[in-house]
């Protein structure tokens, strides 16, 4: 799985001085970012994928053609008990238990997205909290937090997860705990860096000169200005978590049966590549597309929200 790339931003040089921008009707920076995002067809493709996946996850009970856990012992399995291939009844075939693969893939979206969002929300909260403290107050706290992130980031992520999941019981909670133990560091580091640079901005100095209280400086002047890269990181983080869950599940430490999780589906389907290739190919493709969607969106957001592109 990929660790989140450290911000690789694109900067365009100011090719000419001065203000050439056309005066548009007043929009906030978010509106501005949205406009930029809309012009980026690749990012929009990502957004569409993400939206579709979200929709799929929410509407799973409505759109999935079968109960994802219903085992069709006769219709869904050959006489020897092998999965059956795609047909008009099972659009993408069945799995080893005679369950409808498509339905399981649709329900699997719930697991993947829930995990991705929950993990990253927790990471973001912890990371922002520590990053702000570390970046704004500096000194001892900063050293402590930064050393901690160094240590966390020095662990080979997957090994740590394996060790952790070997200790905790496999399952959703364990995955969340494990991924949060590791994942917050990325956020903290990013936020700290942002806070450090924003803190020196003259508008923060101005706020201090005006007697604005420290909490208000943090919440009104600093946080809103560091949020943009966090949003991009969030999208990339979701892709990281989805991929991570799949990898951990692949190693047999993931979500418990019979819950439909893409990683587990690929794991159990992996060895069927010769005899029932649909078991591994379709969930694999769906996983790839989803991760790609979040990556595209995250990249696009990073560009759209990048303050270096502004002015």
């Amino acid at each position, binding site marked *: 799985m990929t660790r989140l790339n450290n911000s690789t931003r694109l900067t365009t040089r100011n090719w*000419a001085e001065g*203000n*050439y921008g*056309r005066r548009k009707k007043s929009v906030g920076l978010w509106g501005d970012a949205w406009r930029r995002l809309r*012009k980026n067809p690749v990012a929009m493709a990502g957004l569409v994928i993400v939206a579709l996946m979200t929709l799929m996850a929410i509407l799973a009970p409505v759109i999935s053609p079968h109960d994802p856990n219903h085992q069709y012992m006769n219709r869904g399995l050959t006489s020897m008990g092998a999965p059956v291939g795609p047909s008009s009844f099972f659009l993408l075939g069945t799995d080893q238990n005679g369950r409808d693969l498509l339905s399981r893939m649709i329900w699997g979206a719930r697991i993947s997205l829930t995990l991705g969002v929950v993990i990253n929300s927790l990471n973001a909260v912890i990371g922002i909290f520590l990053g702000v403290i570390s970046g704004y107050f500096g000194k001892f706290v900063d050293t402590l937090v930064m050393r901690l992130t160094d240590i966390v980031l020095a662990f080979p992520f997957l090994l740590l997860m394996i060790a952790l999941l070997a200790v905790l019981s496999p399952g959703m909670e364990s995955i969340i705990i494990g991924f949060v133990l590791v994942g917050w560091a990325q956020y903290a580091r990013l936020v700290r860096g942002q806070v450090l640079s924003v803190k020196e901005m003259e508008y923060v100095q101005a706020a201090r000169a005006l007697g604005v209280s420290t909490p208000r400086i943090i919440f009104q002047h600093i946080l809103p200005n560091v949020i943009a890269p966090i949003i991009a990181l969030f999208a990339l983080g979701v892709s990281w978590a989805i991929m991570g869950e799949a990898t951990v599940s692949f190693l047999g430490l993931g979500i418990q049966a019979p819950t439909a999780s893409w990683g587990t589906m690929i794991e159990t389907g992996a060895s069927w590549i010769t005899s029932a290739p649909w078991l591994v190919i379709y969930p694999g493709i769906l996983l790839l597309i989803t991760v790609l969607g979040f990556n595209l969106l995250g990249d696009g957001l990073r560009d759209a929200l990048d303050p270096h592109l502004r002015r």
Partner: protein
Amino acid sequence: MAESILEVKDLRTYFYTEAGVVKAVNGVNFRLEKGQSLGVVGESGSGKSITALSIMGLIKPPGRVISGEIRLQGQDLLKKSRKELEKIRGNDIAMIFQDPMTSLNPVLRVGEQIAEAVVLHRKVNRKEGWNVALEMLKKVGIPEAEDRIRRFPHEMSGGMRQRVMIAIALSCNPKVLIADEPTTALDVTIQAQILDLIRLLQKDFETATIMITHDLGVVAEVCRNVMVMYAGQPVEYSDVTTVLEQPKHPYTWGLLSSLPKLNASGKQRLTPIDGMPPDLGNLPEGCAFAPRCPHKKPVCERQEPSGKWLSPGHFVRCHLYEA
């Protein structure tokens, strides 16, 4: 009339951005004679830097030189191939940029950065290239040049770096030197040193110089002729005394009266130009300066002035002088 080195005719450089076509340079004409020094003055966005980059052939997408001629000793640079231009750049025309802190490659030694141009254009070997570099460093007044030649740019002060930039530019004895705000990023005492140096070398190398600046003081110091630009067009051209003392264009008036005078006695209120420079992506009809002009006439907002030579050597683009 002296020999013409560089002649720019009706140069137009546009940028095709998402927000529309930005007419950064919109019809620039001038002529530069051997050894002459031309000041190009204007505020941000007046197109003076883009003009320089256009001459150098360094306009990058989304920008494009859409029309005009740039004749260097009669040959139109706009018709040259990339390879041919590479032979001319740094050799016949050299350029100094505004910010000496960022204009030198941080990972290459200063000597290398001078020598590589010499090796390239003068077809000498590396060692000779370094010798030339050393000689140039001495010429631009860098003390302990033998030591400094091995240094990296970050080990030098801004003034020193700008001297290195000048050494690079002059190392191949160019016919034309374009200096784009060479002292804007420097302190005033260092600026004085650099301007002094430029003046000295101008004489020494007999290089025709285009000095781009927003500071009329700088122009007064080093230039013989001045071209004032506004919104991508030259609005007034003349010798420096005329422009500073008997300007004809309302914009030039405005510029001069905006400046606090050092030698003024007592308090005098400044007279700024109202409003803001126009959006180059959305130029007004008629004269671009009209919306800010205190002397505008109805015709100014309808029709672009074509410009007029009031005397040989004094050009003004203003409806006040067109009849």
